[in-house]
């Protein structure tokens, strides 16, 4: 991940803090994260806001460790050890990338049900960047 400026990050708060996506008025598909033009029909830029459930299942994943973390996550890897990053298929359809927290990395499985909660993603310029991470579904409620 490259550097994301504070104003750029701020604009993404609804999607990062509470999973706000958009439903295409033309093809009805749900876009997450929000897009300028619908990713599914490529023919519409008119959307309705929709709050996603945050629930989904692991489509694929990788374990990041041994110095493999990008700079903004290097400290996390050093302090907390190896961490899983997954592409999760949300129940509304979109596939999104995110860390899986509150889990022993060895216990992450394909198709594992997950949900989202607010976590610290990383800090830059003294500003804590909060956002969703996935957690195993049985821990949420």
């Amino acid at each position, binding site marked *: 991940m490259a550097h994301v400026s504070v104003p750029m990050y701020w604009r993404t708060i609804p999607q990062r*803090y509470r999973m706000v996506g958009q439903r295409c008025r033309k093809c009805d598909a749900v876009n997450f994260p929000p897009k300028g033009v619908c990713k599914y029909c490529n023919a519409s830029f008119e959307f309705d806001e929709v709050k996603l459930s945050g629930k989904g299942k692991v489509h694929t994943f990788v374990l990041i460790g041994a110095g493999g973390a990008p700079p903004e996550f290097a400290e996390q890897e*050093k302090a907390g050890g190896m961490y899983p990053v997954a592409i999760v298929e949300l129940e509304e359809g979109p596939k999104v990338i995110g860390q899986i927290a509150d889990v022993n990395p060895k216990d992450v499985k394909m198709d594992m049900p997950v949900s989202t909660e607010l976590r610290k993603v990383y800090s830059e310029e003294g500003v804590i960047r909060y956002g969703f991470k996935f957690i195993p579904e049985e821990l949420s409620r």
Partner: protein
Amino acid sequence: MTKLSIGISGYGVAVPRLRIKKDEYAKAWGSFQASGVSEKAVMGFDEDILTFASKVSKRALASVPLEPGKVTRFALASTSAPYVEKVLSGTIVSSIGMPDGAFVSDHTTSSRAGTEALMAGVEHVLANPSGCALVAAADAPKASMWSSLEHGLGAGAAGFVLSHDDLVAEFEGHATYVCEHFGERFRPRDDELIRDLNVKKYAQSSFIGATVKAARSLLEKIGTKQEDYAHVVIQQPDARLPRAIARKLGFTDTHLASSSIAGELGDLGAASTLVGLAAALDAAKMGDRILVISYGSGAASDAMSFKIVGERKADPGLRSEVDRKQYIDYIQYLKLKGAIK
């Protein structure tokens, strides 16, 4: 005019998954200084009091259930906020989707902040019959690893919905005792860590004196007696001090049993009495009374009385949060606490 009853309509709790046992301290330092604490909860690298306040707020609303859009007042309590200047409530309001016109307040200067926030919610609902307050206390106090004060410091959070409707526990009244006291637990503005001067008797006499005075004046004010209470929740800097206070007030260990959390979770700072209250609510039966007594150094104590009028319980309850755990060693603890730079 008939008195309109208000109180707790729902609640939720959360405890971080990581734990450290007292043996780890004994191995590293040769002793462990928090009486009666056998292990304690530790926040992970990507957790802080705001992520926990968000979690318990969501759980408290879901337990009623209540739409976030209905909240008219939000109060946050913690002594270990990630920022000294910034509206902390903004993070929670935004992550939950509460109305941007809700009145918010951040309570951060002592371990009494939990009941301070709870009372702010109570006063809002008393003044606004259609209002609905959400109160969240989350804490993970930090002290120097060289200080014995650090040994007991744990982590946890609880959230409460207060309103006129659909009550679980009716609010019966409160009393406060406040005085000037210094040199116990404190944090000068340029310090990141709390400290004390390690004069135990001096600190404890204020702690015991203030809590006993607040509790006695509450009982007198609302006309209840010791035998009316099934559960007594007292601020828990360790697992022993609350027992001394309970005895002075004429209560026994049985009264403390349902809310005794320090032994497994440590000192939860501003979240101590609110997580304790949630634990008491989990165990309480219809008609039970709960007495809550907080303490904040500096010094003040709030006493609050509740009566159980509904059957609703938190989901997950505190017990399942306490039982879900993974142990870490002292080196991992130092890294997570940022003690190794």
